């Protein structure tokens, strides 16, 4: 049972990696990358490394995503969010 769960996580990890790099909009790529980090967090917990899980949740899904989003704003890549 646990192996099926692990395979589900691994497959969604790979799907997230592919879609983060093929999505058209950069903001979507960033958000999918954050989802990738969250899946990675669960995998760390399954691999019996809770230290890594906490760090990845705070750093990978939190701070890195914020830095990407701020950079996207600075390089004017958020045009698709125009409210009309």
């Amino acid at each position: 049972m646990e192996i099926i769960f692990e395979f589900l996580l691994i497959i969604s990890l790979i799907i997230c990696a592919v879609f983060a790099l093929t999505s058209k909009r950069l903001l979507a790529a960033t958000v999918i990358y954050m989802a990738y980090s969250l899946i990675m967090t669960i995998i760390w917990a399954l691999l019996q490394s809770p230290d890594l899980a906490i760090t990845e949740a705070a750093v990978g899904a939190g701070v890195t995503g914020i830095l990407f989003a701020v950079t996207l704003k600075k390089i004017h890549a958020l045009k698709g969010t125009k409210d009309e």
Partner: protein
Amino acid sequence: MGTNKQRSRFIDWVNGDTPEKIHEYSYVKKTIPSHTEQAHEEVITPKKARLFDIGYRITAVAVCLVVVSVLLYTVFNLPLFGSPNNPASNEVVERYVEKGLEETGAVNAVAGMILDYRAFDTFGESSVLFIAVGCVMMLLLRDKNNISAEEDALAEKERIIEKEVKDPILQKIVLVVTPCIFMFGIYVVLNGHLSPGGGFSGGAIMGAGLILFAASFGTNSVQRIFNMKTFRGITTIALMCYALSKAYSFFTGANGLETGIPLGIPGAILSSGLILVLDICVGLIVACTMYGFYSLFVRGEI
């Protein structure tokens, strides 16, 4: 909040600046196609460039496939996943786990390893963070060498928007949530030797809380308590404190000699000698680093 003017200004802010403001960039952009079509004295014709592009792509894919197949072949010949006779789990691991509790006093063997046996390595990592902030500061800090009138106007505009556009729901929730995040971060730092966590994760959590506060109330409100001076002070003092305390420990007892620092009862919060101090230092450095990145990216100053 709610008037049309403010709304359109906010939308402008979200979308970045209006294109006519950055006329220099738009001028540059317009010249790109003419440049490619011209194909002046350089021999790179569009056809040649396309051929190079196709060749590059094919080579890249081929290299990737070769690398991946070699790695997969290696993976299938590795020692079995999850087996206890793995060569990675040798006598070093036994020593760290079995003697770690009495030698370092840390219940969490990972914390005992990275902050006692391999503390010098962790010192290097903290210095890497410090240097990374220094590099980002060199690139993005707005001082007399890196300044332009356009950017000043843009920053002034953002400051006005920050003051005018207030989101009551966000701000009320942040007022409730931020203390909890900080409490959790401090808990994770202080319990680094007892439970999962430690300086790196707790510092990242505290930095994320500070970023959340800054994002909802504006960086100005954070600047009142956390500015360049405090940033410099905290990071340098934490690094110096780390270096000095570890130097003392190396000087007196790196080989298990008497250090004079009591290890305490395993499981108590005040135990495991220097690990608690080092955890606090690392946590402060990481928290300052994370907020420093955000602040430098958003405004070009801390």
